């Protein structure tokens, strides 16, 4: 790899480098996943004089995207990068290119879909918000056409003012005449119909952040409804620097479900994901502590090694990548676990549970550099 220097330390502590022609290095080219190289030194009679059990590997600047991910794969990125360091990148909308720095907010284990685990992997977060807002998930107003109630589904009656879960058993006649609309849903709650689903795994924002081009929005369950503007929007990855995209992979993300869905912990594999309340070093009774560990950057930002209560923090304000003087409200990943809503940070830095996942807000996503 261009610019990489392997520093040889012999087993007796000597760091002198002998005549290169006498060195044998295995492997000669480091691949992803290699954590050591073995160097042997033979004399001219081909006798092994010293066999090394090295190894320290030094990554010298310039740091390209490929070199950054290489050090990340070797588990040594935390030796070369700082919390609060910045990786420069671009964000391109049409023919307009914006500066888009990514901040190193932490280091942690990253698990790929294959089950491979890497250590000390940088967690990056976009410094600015996206240029356009999007729903977390639209109102799931899936109009029922069932003649009789189906097993495994719930029905929500809307009378023009209120939404009500209808108490129906499988086979019961659905009282369409009593309501303006009757919606069919998978959950025993009016929330998904009335406000949108507040579950990261099934959210359209997850699809938006992890796709490029059109066609990113796909129905995910029987009563799902596409966002109204899905066909006119292109996925978030459309705008991201191709050099950055080339090195990134989906990694394991864990997110607590809202209670009406089951209250378990979802596992997803995502390239881009919003940070959780916990990962931003905050706590609230309605935000799960299972949504990832606090990151060091947010510990510093909020001035506490332990989680602080959600509130208003000026330091959490984020500006639009397309207008760096306009602070924007941006989605967090955590659901309000006992209720409707998703956590957000407002344009004034107010961290709160935003009741309506169907509102269009901005994103300030994170990714693992692996």
């Amino acid at each position, binding site marked *: 790899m261009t610019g990489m220097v392997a520093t040889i330390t012999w087993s007796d502590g000597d760091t002198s480098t002998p005549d290169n022609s006498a060195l044998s290095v295995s492997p000669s080219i480091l691949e992803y996943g290699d954590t050591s190289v073995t160097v042997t030194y033979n004399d001219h009679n081909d006798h092994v004089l010293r066999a090394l059990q090295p190894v320290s590997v030094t990554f010298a600047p*310039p740091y390209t995207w490929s070199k950054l991910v290489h050090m990340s794969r070797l588990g040594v990125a935390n030796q070369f990068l700082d*919390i609060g360091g*910045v990786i420069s990148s671009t964000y391109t909308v049409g023919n307009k290119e914006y500066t888009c720095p990514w901040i190193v907010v932490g280091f942690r284990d990253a698990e790929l879909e294959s089950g491979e685990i890497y250590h000390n992997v940088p967690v990056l977060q976009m410094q600015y918000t996206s240029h356009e807002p999007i729903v977390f998930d639209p109102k799931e107003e899936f109009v029922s056409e069932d003649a009789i109630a189906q097993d495994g589904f719930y029905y929500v009656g809307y009378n023009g003012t209120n939404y009500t879960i209808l108490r129906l058993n499988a086979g019961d006649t659905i009282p369409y005449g009593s309501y303006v609309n009757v919606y069919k849903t998978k959950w025993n709650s009016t929330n998904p119909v009335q406000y949108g689903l507040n579950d990261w795994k099934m959210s359209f924002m997850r699809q938006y952040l992890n796709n490029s081009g059109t066609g990113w929005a796909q129905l995910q369950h029987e009563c799902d409804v596409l966002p109204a503007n899905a066909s006119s929007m292109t996925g978030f990855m459309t705008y991201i620097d191709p050099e950055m995209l080339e090195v990134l992979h989906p990694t394991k993300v864990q997110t607590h479900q809202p209670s009406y869905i089951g209250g378990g912990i979802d596992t997803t594999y995502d390239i881009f994901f919003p940070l959780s309340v916990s990962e931003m070093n905050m706590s609230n009774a309605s935000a799960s502590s299972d949504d990832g560990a606090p990151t060091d*950057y947010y510990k*510093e*930002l909020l001035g506490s090694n332990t989680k602080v209560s959600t509130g208003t923090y000026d330091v959490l304000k984020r500006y639009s990548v397309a207008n*760096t003087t306009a602070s924007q409200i941006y989605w967090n990943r955590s659901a309000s676990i006992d209720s409707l809503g998703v956590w957000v940070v407002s344009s004034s830095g107010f961290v709160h549970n935003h009741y309506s996942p169907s509102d269009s807000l901005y994103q300030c996503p994170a990714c693992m550099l692996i």
Partner: protein
Amino acid sequence: MEDKNVYTPRTLSPTERVAFDNLKAENTELRQIVKEQADALMELAEIISEVGNG
């Protein structure tokens, strides 16, 4: 092709950097306001000049 360095080590603490960004945003906004006011004054000056010449 020369390898492009994309990494900048931390120079300010996270809070200092955010404070800097906020200030930068406010300054940019302020500069925009000053520019708009300057443009308005120029327009006014042109009108006064035209009236004076007329």
